[in-house]
């Protein structure tokens, strides 16, 4: 496989192809007829997906830095360049994006009946935007793509959405725009005030910032990404957007767009502002928000009458695990956060697809309108149960690996947060099982539900790979973990390396400890603690 | 002679402005705008004696733009008149938020 890729000079063109092929597809869709639009869009997104698969072999986890880098000056006078690259963190986000885009387009065949050309064109535009976000290594370019994703999503929700689609679309747009504008200010500050001098990733990494500056800039970035994630008090746009969005919109929103936030945490927030990221208050705030998100969202999810809103809230809970995993600042935590991101993308994406199938058949999303579907549609029920179990993190599914690692990593440095967050495991069952029961089990007493058709062949084709991935990643996540590890480790080293110098200077938490103590310590660094505990006895 | 010419230009300009504000007939408003343009032209010409020939060139450009504007503006007025049967600017306010 590697030889084949080398003979195709894969590494020279793949990143550019990934970004621009969906746009070519969009043009193709625009000039085609509405009837052919869906097939064309699926074909193009499938091509992109197949091409992205090569990254599995084409990406070599080396030192953890960017691979397949390329850079062309774009706006030279500002130091902006068209710079792309992929590392262990983004490679799986890219593959997740290409995968879910193709699946979402396939899943929208029956759902979208009006303005089909525009819809599929926007879906492909969205794919370009998201891939650009994950692949850009120039901050300016990143920002352009980050904002670009807003536009198609706004229209997808606003045109093909439900009854309150305008409210939801505007809320979604404004919420995210507010955050990203603050981030723009922060970026410009780093460019002008921080002495970055160019918009390159390395230049920003080396920006010279005092702890005070870091804290402010951190806040601006964290707000932008925190809204995207969404972190607890900033989450209310998500349920509205999810409920109103058409199925494929929800799928992309949950599977990919939310990940841009946590990806931003890992890619930009931690390495750019290591001092702030290690500041005890900041860490405490982020952990508390993450933990509150996990539990609060689970509670709220449990009482939702609307199945789609329920799943939307579960997204908040899941992303809470990512947030605590990231801000625990341990390898296991960050790795776990990454796996939760991937797992949530697949399982929640699948849940939204399943809910979409329910809606297509019954034109309602209220849980109470269903019941006993297990008898009428066994295949559907099987897929639903497996997906729900993956979502609540049953061992053997992808959800468990992520949540386990995230909690484990959090426990290493912040045991209390992990203990509270672990109760989220119970609450996950508390919101998911009643829904499963009220939809699939109980009496099949509604005559409408008796006629509920089982999965069609197309729907099986959509769900089968997702179910396979959920179980596959749950059973053997190591190939993914080992590909991510160097890059995650690099992020961690940057935080800890810079934090050590800053920490001693600003009399931070590591006051009194030998310089470099934090930096040297791997996950095993906490081990002396129990030894002391034993000593106490 | 520069100052009197500029003062004259200012006078013509404010009269034109007054016309734009107080008249409702779209055509007369247009005429007043032309008046303002002429006032500016006058200032350009007067100043060109002291700064160089470019002042006159600007006048040339302004005239061209004025001609184009008059053509399009009058076409719009005709088009609006067909619809509303009036050129009273108070009568067409559909663009009001």
């Amino acid at each position, binding site marked *: 496989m590697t030889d084949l890729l080398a003979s195709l000079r894969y590494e020279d063109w793949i990143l550019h192809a990934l970004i621009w092929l969906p746009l070519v597809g969009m043009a193709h869709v625009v000039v085609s007829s509405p009837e052919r639009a869906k097939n064309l869009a699926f074909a193009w997104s499938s091509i992109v997906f197949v091409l992205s698969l090569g990254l599995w072999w084409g990406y070599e986890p080396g030192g953890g830095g960017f691979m397949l880098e390329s850079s062309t000056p774009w706006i030279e006078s500002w130091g902006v360049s068209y710079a792309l690259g992929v590392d262990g963190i983004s490679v799986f986000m890219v593959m997740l994006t290409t995968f879910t885009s193709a699946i979402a387009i396939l899943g929208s065949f029956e759902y979208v009946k009006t303005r089909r050309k525009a819809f599929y064109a926007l879906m492909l535009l969205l794919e370009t935007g998201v891939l650009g976000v994950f692949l850009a290594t120039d901050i300016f370019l990143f920002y352009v793509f980050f904002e670009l994703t807003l536009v198609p999503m706004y229209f997808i929700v606003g045109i093909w959405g439900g009854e309150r689609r305008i409210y939801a679309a505007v809320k979604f747009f404004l919420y995210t725009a507010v955050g990203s504008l603050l981030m723009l200010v922060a970026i410009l500050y780093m460019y002008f005030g921080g002495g970055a001098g160019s918009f390159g990733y390395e230049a920003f990494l080396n920006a010279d910032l005092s702890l005070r500056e870091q804290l402010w800039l951190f806040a601006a970035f964290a707000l932008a990404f925190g809204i995207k994630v969404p972190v607890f008090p900033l989450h209310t746009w998500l349920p509205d957007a999810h409920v109103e969005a058409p199925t494929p919109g929800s799928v992309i929103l949950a599977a990919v767009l939310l990940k841009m936030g946590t990806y931003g945490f890992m890619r930009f927030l931690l390495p750019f502002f290591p001092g702030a990221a290690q500041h005890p208050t900041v860490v405490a705030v982020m952990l508390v928000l993450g933990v509150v998100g996990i539990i609060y969202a689970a509670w709220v999810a449990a009482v939702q009458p609307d199945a789609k809103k329920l799943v939307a809230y579960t997204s908040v809970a899941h992303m809470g695990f990512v947030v605590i995993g990231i801000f625990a600042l341990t390898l296991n935590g960050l790795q776990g956060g990454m796996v939760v991101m991937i797992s949530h993308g697949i399982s929640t994406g699948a849940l939204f697809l399943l809910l979409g199938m329910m809606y297509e058949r019954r034109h309602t999303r209220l849980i109470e309108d269903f019941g006993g579907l297990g008898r009428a549609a066994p295949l559907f029920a099987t897929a639903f149960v497996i997906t729900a179990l993956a979502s609540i993190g049953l061992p053997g599914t992808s959800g468990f690996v992520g949540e386990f690692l995230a909690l484990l990593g959090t426990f290493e440095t912040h045991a209390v947060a992990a203990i509270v967050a672990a109760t989220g495991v119970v609450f996950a069952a508390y919101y998911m099982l009643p829904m499963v029961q009220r939809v699939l089990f109980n009496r099949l007493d509604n005559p409408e539900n008796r006629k509920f058709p089982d999965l069609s062949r197309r729907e099986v084709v959509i769900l089968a790979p997702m179910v396979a991935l959920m179980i596959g990643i749950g059973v053997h996540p190591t190939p993914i973990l080992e590909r991510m590890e160097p890059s995650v480790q690099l992020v961690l080293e940057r935080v800890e390396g810079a934090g050590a110098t800053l920490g001693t200077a600003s009399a931070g938490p590591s006051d009194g400890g030998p310089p470099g103590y934090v930096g040297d310590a791997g996950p095993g660094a906490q081990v002396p603690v129990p030894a002391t505990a034993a000593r106490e006895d | *002679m*520069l*100052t*009197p*010419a*500029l*003062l*004259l230009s*200012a*006078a*013509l300009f*404010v*009269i*034109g402005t*007054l*016309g734009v*504000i*107080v*008249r*409702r*007939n779209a*055509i*007369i408003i247009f*005429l*007043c705008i*032309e*008046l303002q343009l*002429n006032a500016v*032209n*006058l200032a350009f*010409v*007067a*100043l*060109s*004696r*002291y700064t*160089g*020939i470019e002042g*006159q*060139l600007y*006048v*040339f*450009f302004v*005239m*061209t*733009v*004025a*001609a*184009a*504007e*008059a*053509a*399009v503006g*009058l*076409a719009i*007025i*005709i088009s609006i008149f*067909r619809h509303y049967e*009036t*050129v009273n600017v108070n009568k067409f306010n559909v663009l009001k938020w």
Partner: protein
Amino acid sequence: MTDILFILFAVVAVGGAVGVVVGRSPVASLLFMVATLASVAGIYVLFEAHFLAAIQVLVYAGAIMVLFLFVIMLLNLGHDYRADLRYGSWSLLSLVVVGLTAGVLMQGFSGDTGAALLENGATVAAAIDAAVIEKGAVGVIADPLFTDYVVAFELMGLLLLVAIVAAVVLAKPRGAGEG
């Protein structure tokens, strides 16, 4: 002599301008406007801008004003004078604001900013006069127009073309383009 002519033209121009604003019918306003334009052309001559003066008369007073006249006659306007001019507090307020503007402008123009300008005014004027003698009144404009300002000139041409097309499209009755 030039001073007397200037005063004459100025009086006619201001009178015409006032006439435009207060003219009862559009046609009257238009004719006042022509008077103003003509006297401004006269002032151009006083400033040795012969070519512009000619164009002012030919294009402005001639072509554009005739275009206005055609439109006025085409639309058969001129009967709603009372509804046309705004009276009362509105016009008072307008007068105040406009008067203030005038005052500010006068103040600005009559200040001492022009001192440096006036100093080298003689040399510039002499240079222009020399150029006029050398190239002729048209040539002195045409020379920079086709060299330094040729791009702007071309853009003007384009603008006029666009304006023509736009005018035709806008003025054409709806639905007239079909069939």
